């Protein structure tokens, strides 16, 4: 096993051990905190597929996170008030079933990624960064100005949605669901990285001309990974909304996009479990620094600067060492 694989296993076991300990010590808040970290890690795993493997610096992933959140909010609010979502051409009722909500979240974020990706991938470099940021902002203003689902104030859901066979209101059971989804997302990312598609995508990041010269369109590779990436982040959004039982336009904000990117980079770009480490550290910092000072973002900013300027490779890079080529 490579050193990075050992780090990955330790990380994932650690993420499991903390809430189990908290459960035995009767500390539900710690469980919720870890759940939050795991959900943000899923969002980061999504972004890392586009960023780490595809080299796509997307600053608009909040759009998928928010779409996932609103998929939950809209379906659950209709279930809550017993009003159908639409009556024409077919009657669609709201639902409080997590799997159904997840399907809608995947669908909505996938469609949004397909449309915005098709446009923004016509460009590259700084243009791509600015355009994804702008599209994210478009969704933010859309959510703010659309009054049907709370507008600026957001939307509260009073009871957490249901998952067959589990009591989602019990923190440790909800954590189990989230942890399972995180494992699935990591598995997907790992499978794709090793696949023929992943090989071509990674090559397109390093040398697009090479990929074209062997008859593969880099544009299509990037669009495909951008859609997958958006869908995984969208699923995280649905879980995040369920954790808070609340959605608001702030899920769409540029800060959210920036934070998701911070998880990825804090942990290490293109490292499978980088986002897990990044999200865990972020939540820990928020908890401990936030307890020390109301202005903890100043320290977070300083820490980020130090990492960018001096510790390239992120936390997983620091622990697992430089990456080497391997087949």
């Amino acid at each position: 096993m490579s050193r990075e694989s050992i780090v990955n296993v330790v990380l994932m076991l650690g993420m499991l051990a903390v809430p189990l300990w908290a459960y035995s010590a009767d500390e539900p808040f710690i469980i919720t905190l870890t759940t939050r970290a795991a959900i943000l890690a899923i969002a980061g795993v999504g972004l890392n597929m586009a960023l780490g493997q595809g080299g796509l610096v997307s600053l608009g992933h909040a759009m998928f996170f928010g779409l996932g959140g609103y998929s939950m909010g809209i379906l659950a609010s209709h279930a809550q008030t017993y009003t159908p979502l639409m009556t024409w051409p077919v009657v669609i009722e709201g639902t409080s079933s997590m799997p159904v909500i997840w399907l809608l979240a995947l669908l909505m974020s996938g469609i949004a990624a397909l449309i915005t990706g098709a446009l923004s991938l016509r460009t590259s470099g700084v243009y791509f960064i600015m355009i994804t940021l702008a599209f994210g902002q478009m969704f933010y203003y859309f959510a703010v100005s659309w009054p049907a689902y709370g507008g600026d104030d957001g939307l509260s859901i009073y009871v957490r949605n249901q998952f067959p066979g589990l009591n989602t209101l019990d923190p440790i059971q909800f954590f189990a669901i989230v942890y399972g989804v995180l494992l699935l997302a990591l598995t997907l990312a790992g499978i794709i990285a090793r696949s023929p598609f992943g090989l071509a995508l990674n090559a397109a990041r390093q040398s697009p001309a090479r990929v074209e010269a062997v008859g593969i369109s880099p544009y299509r590779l990037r669009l495909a990974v951008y859609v997958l990436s958006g869908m995984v982040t969208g699923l995280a959004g649905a879980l995040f909304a369920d954790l808070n039982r609340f959605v608001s336009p702030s899920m769409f904000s540029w800060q959210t996009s920036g934070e998701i990117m911070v998880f990825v980079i804090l942990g290490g770009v293109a490292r499978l479990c980088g986002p897990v480490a990044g999200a865990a550290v972020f939540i820990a910092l928020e908890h401990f620094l936030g307890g020390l000072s109301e202005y903890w973002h100043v320290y977070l900013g300083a820490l980020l600067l130090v990492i960018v300027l001096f510790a390239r490779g992120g936390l997983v890079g620091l622990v697992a060492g430089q990456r080497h080529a391997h087949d």
Partner: protein
Amino acid sequence: MRMTEPVLSIQGICKRFGALQVSDSVTLDVQPGEIHALIGPNGAGKSTLIQQIAGGLQPDAGRVFLCGRDVTRLNTAARSRLGLARTFQVSALAMEDTVLQNAVLGALGATGHPFQMFGSAMGRSALRSKAEEALRRVGLSDHAHTQTAELSHGQRRQLEIAVALTLDPKVFIMDEPMAGLGTQGSQTMTAFLNTLRSEAPILMVEHDMEAVFALADRISVLVYGQLLATGTVAQIRNNPSVQQAYLGTDT
């Protein structure tokens, strides 16, 4: 004069960058089994012409035919899928990947189905054996698991050609395959390319005149975007205007 259908044919290619005419009604073809060398002084427009043939650049006028099919409007990837295999002047390889991974990428491109998201790329025996065979042919088998960035200049040249081999091409387009190889390397490469012409014809841009004279069945001379002459080695050697424009000043 034409005995057979050319594999590659370009007709009346024109390209202008502002005031600079980089391609001026260039017409040439590549016949089956031949090595066709494109020579000319620096700035003659050779690389721009190669780009227009490979699809990286649209000509202002003129057409490109591959096996009789008009590919002028197709992009690079589509032309590659139709059998045009190109090697780059400055190696364009995935430097973080291993040598074998680069070759497998070629084999994957040749299948026409790059969107396979399940199973390991390096575990596909069909892709892998094709890639290993190509590496063996160019003499890179010992370096299959080396990171590409660690290869020498000459080895990168070899890998460029190995990737092209995995594509089972109809025609090779090679931009300075001898550059940076050294005397020994040049001779080995010359011998290898000589065996390659039976597989598919080669259009190559090359500055190494020794290699050009040893390999080329025909030579085309490009000066200031214009085709000065096309002919056999002897014809070009004895062409007074070529001597004046090019051979006289070089060497």
